[in-house]
């Protein structure tokens, strides 16, 4: 994902100006000390500033003040660029929320008291469960749930979608509003669900600011590596200095400082924070609220994904897909009987039967249906109509109808049993239609798998994640749905405790488990899973138990989350490798031209001009590589559908081999250029 492109509307000069201003204030040694590598650069910078004033501070030196100033300014730029990279990344995230900042100040809102009187209060005075009214043009101050009214809302500040969204009470998705969005038309009554400082925007801002305080385990261990590498480099340069002194050769102090700066991993140290911050920004751009950064990084490790069948894999409503006549009846007859018996059935199944019958051309006006309707009830598990013509039409669950017919003294054709079984095996739910004591036909109800969902599971499989479908259905139905959706594993007749048990079992085997859920009964499983992704339209119990909330309630986004998690780590790894190899190569290129023995020319493979030109070329390269790599740090390395070994090989080719060639070529070019100048 290209953060720059996606963020085009936010990317104005303001980001860069702010970043530049903040970069300068960050020269304060106390703010640099958290990054040991940059701290070392700053220490060197201070020594160099003294040397600028008096080049002979540590004994006679052949370097001019101007040459010292050039080296000093390069060190200065190194720190500046690194601060700048960090601030650009931070500001990209901040700007996104910037427009909502106004919410942070107290604004006046119309609070509706218990007796219905409107009172003007400030946002900070609002408590959870207070009722407020928002009107056309108002900013919605806090997250809330719509309890009355209907209005169109501009959510572009949060989602980036410019088309307005309709909000009304009583539905899942469209009855929650997010603080920071704006009412375009009409009015809404809202119940406040979060107090000030807890809204999505608040958390987003908070996470952006928190990036340094809580490092993820991977960051901590990478930092340890960088510190170890810095100590080695420091030792190496110190020894070099002493040995050169012992050999009675002379080397300028600024040259040693340059060597040290070129050797320590400045590139990756400067880019660590930008990489992490931009990973976080990408998650936010997806409209996902993550509770911690650690959870984003662990997303890359997920082996298993738990999904509820209903709502995610299927539409959730069983629909009539087929009428099966028995005996001498034609399909059209059955369609007509099904239509009549379901007309007063208000359940989604009943409605789907009516609409399927309509496709067979059955369309009887309500006034033409004469008889006593029997509505569907969970108790009888059937519906129907006693027609004036005397026919008693019933439609319902297999065992209910059979019981009814046997009760009336009828008999069941064995053919019916065979048909019922056939439908079950295909994953459908059979319903029987009876007229008086005869079964006249069957209806095949089926839960429809969402279009395109198969591709989603294939993609998941491609990135190494096994999906497990949880469903309350019997195993036959579950199997058919799983096959249709391309899922290998499923658990049928699952109770909430079964889910937790299975998640625990998998975790004990060392698996990382993600769970997507929205219901209150999913909450324990969401909490148990390593990654719990709750849908925004889910219950608040689910949202509280989860460590990520998807504001768009789109479960397929899990793929993007996993990819972002992996990309974040991979970018960090690739740039670390690049930085360290780059440094080693610079060292090779530079050292022979530093040791002042004529014969060293033999191993000066780059044929750099010895002394100052070589030093300043390496240093310039070392400095400009930081801004040059910043876009990669922010956009991330490409992570296509590759196996880990292919991915590794590609990254090594680009960032490993590249790190060997780039410094050699560019240092030589800069050296020739500088040689031409002097």
């Amino acid at each position: 994902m290209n953060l720059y492109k996606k963020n085009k509307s936010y990317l104005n000069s303001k980001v860069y100006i702010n970043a530049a201003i903040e970069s300068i204030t960050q020269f304060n040694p106390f703010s640099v000390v958290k990054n040991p590598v940059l701290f070392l650069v700053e220490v060197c910078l201070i020594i160099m500033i003294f040397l600028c004033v008096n080049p002979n501070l540590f004994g006679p030196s052949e370097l001019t003040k101007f040459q010292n100033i050039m080296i000093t300014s390069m060190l200065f730029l190194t720190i500046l660029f690194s601060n700048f990279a960090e601030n650009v990344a931070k500001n990209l995230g901040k700007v996104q929320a910037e427009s909502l900042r106004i919410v942070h100040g107290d604004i006046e809102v119309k609070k509706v008291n218990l007796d219905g009187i409107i009172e003007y209060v400030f946002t900070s005075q609002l408590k959870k469960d207070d009722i407020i009214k928002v009107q056309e043009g108002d900013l919605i101050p806090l997250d809330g749930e719509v309890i009355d009214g209907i209005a169109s809302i501009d959510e572009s500040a949060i989602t980036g979608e410019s088309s307005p969204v309709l909000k009304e009470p009583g539905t899942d998705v469209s009855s929650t509003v997010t603080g920071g969005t704006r009412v375009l038309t009409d009015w809404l009554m809202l119940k406040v669900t979060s107090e000030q400082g807890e809204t999505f925007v608040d958390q987003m801002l908070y996470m952006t600011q928190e990036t340094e305080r809580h490092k993820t385990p991977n960051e901590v261990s990478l930092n340890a590596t960088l510190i170890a590498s810095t100590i080695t480099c420091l030792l190496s340069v110190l020894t070099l200095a002493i040995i050169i002194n012992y050999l009675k050769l002379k080397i300028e102090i600024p040259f040693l400082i340059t060597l040290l700066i070129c050797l320590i991993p400045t590139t990756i140290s400067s880019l660590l924070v930008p990489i992490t911050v931009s990973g976080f920004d990408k998650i936010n751009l997806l409209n996902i609220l993550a509770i911690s950064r650690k959870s984003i990084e662990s997303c890359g490790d997920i082996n298993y994904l738990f999904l509820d069948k209903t709502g995610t894999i299927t539409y959730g409503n069983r629909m009539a897909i087929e009428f099966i006549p028995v005996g001498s009846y034609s399909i059209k007859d059955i369609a007509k009987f099904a239509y009549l018996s379901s007309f007063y059935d208000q359940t989604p199944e009943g409605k789907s039967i009516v609409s399927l019958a309509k496709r067979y051309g059955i369309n009887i006006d309500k006034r033409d249906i004469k008889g006593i309707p029997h509505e569907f009830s969970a108790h009888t598990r059937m519906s129907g109509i006693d027609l004036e013509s005397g026919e008693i039409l019933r439609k319902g669950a297999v065992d209910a109808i059979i019981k009814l017919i046997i009760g009336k003294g009828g008999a069941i054709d064995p053919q019916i049993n065979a048909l019922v079984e056939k439908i079950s095996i295909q994953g459908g739910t059979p319903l029987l239609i009876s007229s008086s004591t005869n079964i006249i036909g069957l209806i095949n109800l089926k839960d429809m798998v969402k279009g395109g969902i198969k591709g989603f599971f294939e993609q998941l499989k491609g990135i190494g994640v096994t999906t497990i479908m949880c469903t309350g259905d019997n195993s036959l139905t579950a199997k058919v749905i799983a096959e249709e959706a391309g899922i290998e594993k499923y658990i049928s007749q699952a109770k909430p405790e079964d889910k937790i048990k299975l998640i625990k079992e998998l975790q004990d085997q060392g698996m990382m488990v993600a769970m997507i859920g929205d219901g209150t009964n999913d909450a324990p499983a969401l909490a148990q899973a390593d990654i719990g992704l709750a849908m925004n339209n889910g219950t608040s119990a689910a949202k509280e138990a989860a460590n990520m909330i998807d504001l768009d309630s789109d479960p397929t986004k899990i793929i993007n989350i996993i990819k972002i998690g992996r990309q974040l780590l991979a970018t960090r790894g690739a740039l670390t490798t690049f930085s360290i190899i780059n440094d080693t190569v610079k060292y090779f290129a530079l050292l022979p031209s530093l040791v002042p023995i004529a014969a060293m020319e033999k191993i000066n493979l780059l044929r750099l001009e010895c002394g100052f030109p070589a030093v300043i070329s390496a240093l310039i390269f070392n400095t400009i590589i930081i801004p040059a790599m910043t876009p990669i740090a922010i956009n991330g390395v490409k992570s296509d559908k590759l196996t880990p070994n292919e991915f590794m090989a590609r990254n090594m080719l680009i960032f490993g081999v590249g790190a060997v060639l780039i410094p050699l070529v560019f240092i030589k070019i800069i050296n020739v250029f500088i040689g031409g100048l002097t």
Partner: protein
Amino acid sequence: MIETTFTLLAIFIVLVPISYLIGEYIANNIVKYCPEKNEGKLGLVSKIEDFIFTICGINKNEKMNGNSYVLNLMIFNFIIGTVCFLGIYFQAHIMAAKYNIDTPSISQIFHTVISYITNTDQTHITPETNLTPLSKWFIIPVLMFTSSATGLSAAVVIMRGIILGFIGSFYVDFFKFLIRILMPLCLITSFLFLIFDTPNTFTTLVEFKTIEGEKHIFQVGPAAAFEAIKLLGQNGGSFFNTNSAHPFSNPNFITNFLQIIAMILMPTVLIYTLGVLLKNNKEANILLIALYGLLVIEILAVSYFELQNVEKFYGLINNAPNILGKETRIGIPSTSIFITAASCVSGATNASIESFHPFSSAIFLFNLIYQGLLGNQGLGFISTLTFIIYTAFMIGLMIGQSPQLYGRKIEKREIILTSIILLINPITTLIGTLIIILTYGDTYTSIFDKAHYFTSVIYEFQSACSNNGSGFDNLADTMPLFNNLLSITMFLGWYLTIILAIYLAESFSKKPIISTESNYVFKTDTVLYALLLLFVSITITIIVFFPFIILGPIIEMIET
């Protein structure tokens, strides 16, 4: 070059099957730690073992934690070390009447004991004139066996910690290695040496007349037995001062061939043990291909440099290869293989390292700093593993997964411990080298001599820290300061590494195993992995190594 290649091929043909068998045996009988199961298989050995365990009060099922493993290992080593120190200190008073022995100074004895108990065998004394037969026949071999079994135990602990998830008991590991591995292998090897003319006798002194007619007294003894543990235990300290260059130590081409195999046997075995434990022999083969690939390239380079005409350096006859300091009965190719392999694993030497081509000594120096290229007994394996940990860390980051090694996560604690293990070498050697150079280095005036002195001193310290033990022979190294600094370096290089490795093992053992069932896992039994491992390890080594090679061997090379 052709001779070198064929000798190498012969070595691998013998080495690989033997190492695999021993590796499998170690994995099943020592690492897996289930004494009950294998009792029927090796009745006699188990009985001897049980007898020793009963006498010493060792519980063979005990599972120590990291602290108690470290504590027991240190106490045991301390006791052995102290006893041996006193033994050498009072050697003149115990059955030494007829030998004319100069008991060395305290700093010399201290250095010798530390050197042998840390498997370094940096011998600053002359075994023939400074040690009585009693010291040489009993005290030194005891130290050699102790250090060898200690190192192997540490290697086993880290394998257990990472793969099996527990630590084990030091005494059980120690005695099992002694009884099941080192003693039988040494017995077989010394018989082989004996067959191929290495002397072995209980006579202590031989008198003979030289060509000039002068009477000469010569100290002899169980050389074949001594050579066996010297090489198998990767100790490297010989019965004779000139080590394997001595005709009684290494009489001919065949013993030389056997000595090379004995020298690199245990590191190879440990890699196969790892493979058996991982149930993935392909991975062990890949690791060995990576390590031996590098070694073979080095050997070919060394024999190429040694076959060059080096008139420039040592003023030899035009168009002759560099035979200076080499034994003609062994020849340049076999000497090159022997010395290059020895620079990886032990201080055994069959030629004068000092008179090798500067580029060859640069390669030896590289091996000392690398440490994990086969490496010293047990410790080499630990060093290889630190590179493996770093490689796994890098792979994890680069493919976007939390880094893990054999199913256990690599986190802060593991990385810090690994980094400290890697930092021991540069820190101790650099400090030691600088002190010595600044104290004694002013006697040299020309830049060539200074560079050569620097190379010798850094080599000495690197060899001490990586517990190798080889050194440049003309270096004046018997000053108390030098001895003591080297003792400290050896002590840290050996025990600090072992202690950190045990804690590293403990830290890994407490982590839950992550499944590697998913298809998004990096496959480690591939050539790509071998390349990455070499890449990571060489990069790490080069950062430390580069300034030295520039200022030592390369200045020597160019400034003449």
